[in-house]
């Protein structure tokens, strides 16, 4: 009897001891494709190395819609995850509800203010307090091309203007292949659209029309021209595009079935996971007309207020790890993005990432660095959703005239 109670006491002691050290972090995200899942696995490894347990909470859906829905129900139930993949104005909306944790202690200890560009740090703060940890910087206005397909079609190099692009696309089509691999989901339509607007109108027009939502810019002839170019791209996509996931469209380019794809640099993660080399197997170039502009999409993890002390410690470690050099390097190598932490050594990164990093710094100085509206970095979810509907409708329904398309988008931009 004595022995049993001593054993029980010993077990209880050990468990209590370990509970005080190791917390559990439940992390909500939608990184479920090949390259992305590998990247999240790196963060899990780092957290497990620190002795914490990682509870993965992956909700599939490329644009994050399903994940956000699940998050809302968890928060309302009073049981939020430790961290969730929230970005842009969404962070401010959540912070306004008063459910995000204050990360100032971690930020001061890790010197975040000196390590983050101003435009990014502002998004991570709410009323001056850090509430989220940024993970990476994605460039959205990329164009990916299969080098082999371009050679077969007789296209010399990646097109730099929209006229050059349509000429190249014609050549690919004539060679019997699909010119543009597209996934018919509304966020993908919108991603292509914002690159077109950026290329046709330039960074200033993009800012006026899609960020400031200025009605004059939205109804200008430049917007009409953007919509015409946008519609023209559709004729180069294949009829099975509606509903296709983004990574399946990238797979079409990887396998040589299609020539081009307009997608952010998370597509590079797919190329990397398939063992393809930049420059040799695939070409990365800024979308036509956008070489001097950079549409950024910063992924971040917002931290929620937790009640358990061990979980809070684990959460603080998570925030510190996310901004740490080890994670920043290994995660971004797998994901296709570049580190958000400034002054990182870019030796291990490939040429596309080096170009992205250089352009990020250059456009920050020249004013060509703009947030991506298609990826929730620019305006409220309500306005973004309404514009996305109007753009997607225009893409899918050929009966909507360009003039009506302009009107619909302008009306949608007025959504509060």
């Amino acid at each position, binding site marked *: 009897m004595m022995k049993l109670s001593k054993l029980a006491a010993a077990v209880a002691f050990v468990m209590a001891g370990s509970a005080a050290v190791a917390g559990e972090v439940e992390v909500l995200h939608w990184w479920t494709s090949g390259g992305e899942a590998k990247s999240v696995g790196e963060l899990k490894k780092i957290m497990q190395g620190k002795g914490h347990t990682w509870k993965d909470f992956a909700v599939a859906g490329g644009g994050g819609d399903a994940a956000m829905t699940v998050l809302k129900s968890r928060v309302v139930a009073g049981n939020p995850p430790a961290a969730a993949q929230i970005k842009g104005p969404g962070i401010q909306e959540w912070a306004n509800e008063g459910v995000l944790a204050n990360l100032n202690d971690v930020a001061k200890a890790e010197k975040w203010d000196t390590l983050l560009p101003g435009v990014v740090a502002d998004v991570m703060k709410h009323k001056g307090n850090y509430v989220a940890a940024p993970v990476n910087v994605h460039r959205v206005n990329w164009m990916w091309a299969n080098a082999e397909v371009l050679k077969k079609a007789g296209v010399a190099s990646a097109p730099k203007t929209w006229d050059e692009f349509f000429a190249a696309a014609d050549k690919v089509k004539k060679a019997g292949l699909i010119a543009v691999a597209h996934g018919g989901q509304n966020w993908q339509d919108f991603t292509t659209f914002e690159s077109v607007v950026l290329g046709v109108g330039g960074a200033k027009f993009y800012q006026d029309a899609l960020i400031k939502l200025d009605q004059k810019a939205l109804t200008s002839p430049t917007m009409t021209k953007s919509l015409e170019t946008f519609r023209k791209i559709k004729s180069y996509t294949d009829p099975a595009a509606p509903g296709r996931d983004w990574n399946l469209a990238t797979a079409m380019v990887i396998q040589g079935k299609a020539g081009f794809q307009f997608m952010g640099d998370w597509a590079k993660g797919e190329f990397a996971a398939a063992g393809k080399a930049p420059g040799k197997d695939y070409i990365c170039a800024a979308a036509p007309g956008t070489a001097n502009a950079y549409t950024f999409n910063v992924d971040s993890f917002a931290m929620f207020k937790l009640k358990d002390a061990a979980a809070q410690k684990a959460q603080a470690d998570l925030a510190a790890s996310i901004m740490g050099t080890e994670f920043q390097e290994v995660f971004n190598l797998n994901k296709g993005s570049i580190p958000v932490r400034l002054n990182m050594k870019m030796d291990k990164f490939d040429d596309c990432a080096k170009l992205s990093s250089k352009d990020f710094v250059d456009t920050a100085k020249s004013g060509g660095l703009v947030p991506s509206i298609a990826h929730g970095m620019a305006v409220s979810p309500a306005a973004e959703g309404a514009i996305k509907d109007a753009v997607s409708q225009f893409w*899918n329904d050929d009966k909507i005239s360009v003039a009506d398309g302009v009107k619909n988008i302008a009306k949608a931009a007025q959504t509060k």
Partner: protein
Amino acid sequence: MKSFENLLPKLVIAPGFVLGFAFIYGLMIWNGVLSMTGSRMLPNYENFVGLDQYAALWEMDRWYVALKNLGIFSVLYVGGSMLVGMVLAIFLDQKIRAEGTLRTIYLYPMALSFIVTGTAWKWILNPSDGLQKLMHDLGWTSFNFDWLVQSDYAIYCVVIAGVWQSAGFAMALFLAGLRGIDDSIIKAAQIDGASLPLIYWRIILPILRPVVFSTILVLSHLSIKSFDLVMALTAGGPGYATDVPATFMYTMSFTRGQIGLGAASATMMLATVAAIVVPYLYSELRSKPHDR
């Protein structure tokens, strides 16, 4: 003791009744209250805006598309399922050989969830991988069936998948009804010289009115509930061409962070459905004593 015996059934049913009343009607009222606030991402009761959300709702093109789709889908789904179900039931009622097997086969789709139905039909109706490609491979290269990717026709694909799923159910209900009809009436009609189609049209179908009533009620509630079928088959369609009020409400409330607008659309859905179902219910339940 006798009064307790009379009271006992009421006591047994009372908890279920109270809970049902509270959760169904109470939550409907809560939803109505929510629709009059300016709630965005999470419910916010301090921000009372009256009927502003309804005004915003009726200005959205997407809402009109959703309502139109609900109308098209409900009418075609209920009508189609009943028609196909009735035809199948009449054929199966002719005392054929493999009736049990055929009945089971026709009823199988009902056992699938709408998600499975939606996904399977999405693959079948996909122009590059499904039926159209099959026809092209077999030689009919001008065969065209890309309704799924056309904004105007995508909703009819949802109807096809829905009717496929529920026709068996309607068939089972009608078959049970047909089996319950007294043979002597039919024999009397045949002696009077009525042809078989006339017998079905003038005698049997009117007798089946209660069965028709229950079938319509079940099918219409299934059609309004068809969120998962639409999501699995088209995810709202090319753009939002196959949006229905259920998917509209879900998107607005949970994805776009406009809970007030979503609640308003839910209340409108309730009002529309009530406006059609309640009079029908009333007329059917009232006229029954007269028919007997």
